[in-house]
């Protein structure tokens, strides 16, 4: 991704306050509801927090909007925003993966599908990690996996609860086995956090499938979902074509999952901050004296370094060159 370097230099700050723009919302002027197929005027939908006024279906929120809807105003500090994909397999389908990434970075204004940082939910400090479906379907590759692990380690180092919001198609196949192994990496970091007594909460939003559901999202202490969210291991089309049967109504929706015992609770978007704050209040006293294996301290040091880094410092790519 050599061609992206000038843009990186042009960025004002590494830990920048995100600016939330309405144009980040997906789709055109009118949007069709996935739940009741009503066509809704977009502006009305945005005013209602992207929740269908008729059937209460919760549309997928872009990462920045999710952060805004969850955290107290002005409390967000983004972390590890620098990390960009490496395309180590030189993967090419219709377009080279590196080019795809570059375009997506430009379109979304963020380096990867996961936004991670610290902030406050109704006054409770947390580490927050949000998967953004606009960035290659919220898929998990090396960077997403690394940032999730770093988020868990930051939570451990700073003794903060960890909150995830997921919307993802699963592992990012452009990164091959490196993607699959992020399932292992994220679970390893969560095992570490959990052994230290840290609390983790995952809110699954529409849609959450594949390698994300089958890894970190499913091993958090608490699993919540937004109403109507599609949640599953395999996508409904794959299942339908495998079993050659029609799928039952409501299959793989949040309500179905809760009925089958897979979710702790379904919570409406407007109630989420309050619910998260309440859950955090119940769970704060569980920290153990736990030495860990040094990762959390390393993450802390990295955070410190990131804070001190002035704009215009050597980019990560240059750092590698220097190290080798």
């Amino acid at each position, binding site marked *: 991704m050599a061609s992206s370097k000038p843009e990186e230099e042009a960025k004002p700050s590494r830990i920048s306050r995100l600016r939330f723009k309405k144009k980040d919302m997906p789709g055109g002027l009118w949007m069709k509801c996935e739940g009741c197929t009503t066509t809704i005027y977009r502006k009305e939908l945005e005013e209602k927090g992207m929740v269908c006024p008729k059937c209460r279906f919760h549309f997928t929120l872009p990462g920045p909007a999710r952060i805004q809807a969850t955290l107290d105003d002005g409390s967000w500090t983004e972390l590890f925003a620098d990390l960009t994909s*490496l395309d*180590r*397999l030189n*993967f090419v*389908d219709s377009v080279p993966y590196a080019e795809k990434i570059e375009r997506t970075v430009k379109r979304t204004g963020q380096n990867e599908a996961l936004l991670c940082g610290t902030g406050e939910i109704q006054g409770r400090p947390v580490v927050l990690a949000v998967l953004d479906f606009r960035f290659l379907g919220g898929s998990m590759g*090396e*960077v997403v996996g*690394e940032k999730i692990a770093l988020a868990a380690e930051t939570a451990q180092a700073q003794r903060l609860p960890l909150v995830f919001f997921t919307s993802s198609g699963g*592992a990012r*196949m*452009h990164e*091959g*086995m*490196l*993607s*699959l*192994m*992020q*399932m*292992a*990496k994220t*679970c*390893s*970091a969560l*095992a570490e956090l959990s*052994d230290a007594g840290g609390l983790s909460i995952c809110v699954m939003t529409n849609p959450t499938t*594949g*390698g994300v*559901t*089958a*890894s*970190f*999202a499913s*091993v958090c202490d608490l699993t919540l979902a937004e109403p109507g969210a599609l949640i*599953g*291991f395999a996508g409904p089309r*794959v*299942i339908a074509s*495998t079993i050659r*049967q029609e*799928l*039952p109504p409501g*299959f793989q929706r949040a309500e179905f999952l809760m009925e*089958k*015992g*897979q979710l702790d609770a379904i919570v409406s978007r407007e109630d989420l901050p309050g619910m998260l704050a309440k859950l955090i209040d119940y769970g704060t006293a569980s920290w153990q004296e736990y030495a*860990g*294996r*040094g*990762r959390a*301290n*390393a*993450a802390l*040091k*990295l955070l410190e*370094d990131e804070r001190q880094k002035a704009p215009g410092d050597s980019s*990560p790519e240059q*750092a*590698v060159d220097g*190290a080798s």
Partner: protein
Amino acid sequence: MSRPKKPDTNPAMAFERPIQEFEFQLSELEELAETTHLDISEEIVAMRQKIAMAIHETYADLSAWDQVNVARHPDRPVASDYIAQLFDDFVELHGDKMYGDDAAIVTGLASLNGRRFMLVGHRKGRTTKERLETNFGCAHPEGYRKALRKMRLAEKMGLPIVTFINTPGAYPGIGAEERGQSAAIAENILEMFRIKTPILTIVIGEGGSGGALGIGIGDRVLMMQYAYYSVISPEGCAAILWKDGARTAEAAEALKLTAPTLIELGIVDGMVPEPPGGAHRDRETAMQTMARVIPDHLDELAQIPVDELLSARREKFRRIGALADRFPVLTPQEPS
């Protein structure tokens, strides 16, 4: 050496056609020698050499897609072959004690050359009936939960664990989703980081995505020479990215799913060599290799104190990906 009576008609194995042709001719020569008592031993020797050459040439230059087909070959040794022919003893333990006994995963107490361990492996059948029973090696949540229960038992009994990965992927079906396929796999991955006993993982055939990883967190992860390990099947990848399910060869190439590349990427620790022409051509030799590899690795892992083992296991998977190199601060440190 098992020899086909007529050339294989499996189109996926077309690249083996020259070898199969010679093998067929050899079987005819041998039959001729037996029935007519003609002395054609020279011709037979020459034909054997021809076969060896053809195997050498074909297998020296296998494409990724060819290799996927070798990994899927119906004659390739599967878990039940190792159990029946390699292990000195095997006591199968059934069931997850919650819901059912998934035939797609076999678990039990095994011994091999004086080493005892818990075997956890995907099971693929050889006959059509067996294949249907085992869902072609695609496990349900109860299979993963059975695996975890037996791994915990191994931990308690002080036995190491050997897992055999051989699955196209976890089963995508209604029941699997209802019973929490994702949660079962995720929990296995997380809990395997906590199991206080050595884990040796060997991909013996197909390493299909999350379904493979669900029993794939090992202190050592090995791959047989012609096995593959991939985030998605080449068919699935081609259908999604190229919108053309037929472009499997390109997808297989792009996914970098072979043992040498995965070793290079730091995902796999070592390769178990296969006999010339693949394990499906010579199961006996494949078994003999495994008879050395499994005890060797178990003996090495047994030397490592369990705390170090667990810490190294987490570190090994935590470090996969180039990012650790980009951020030197993230290299492991002593707890302070």
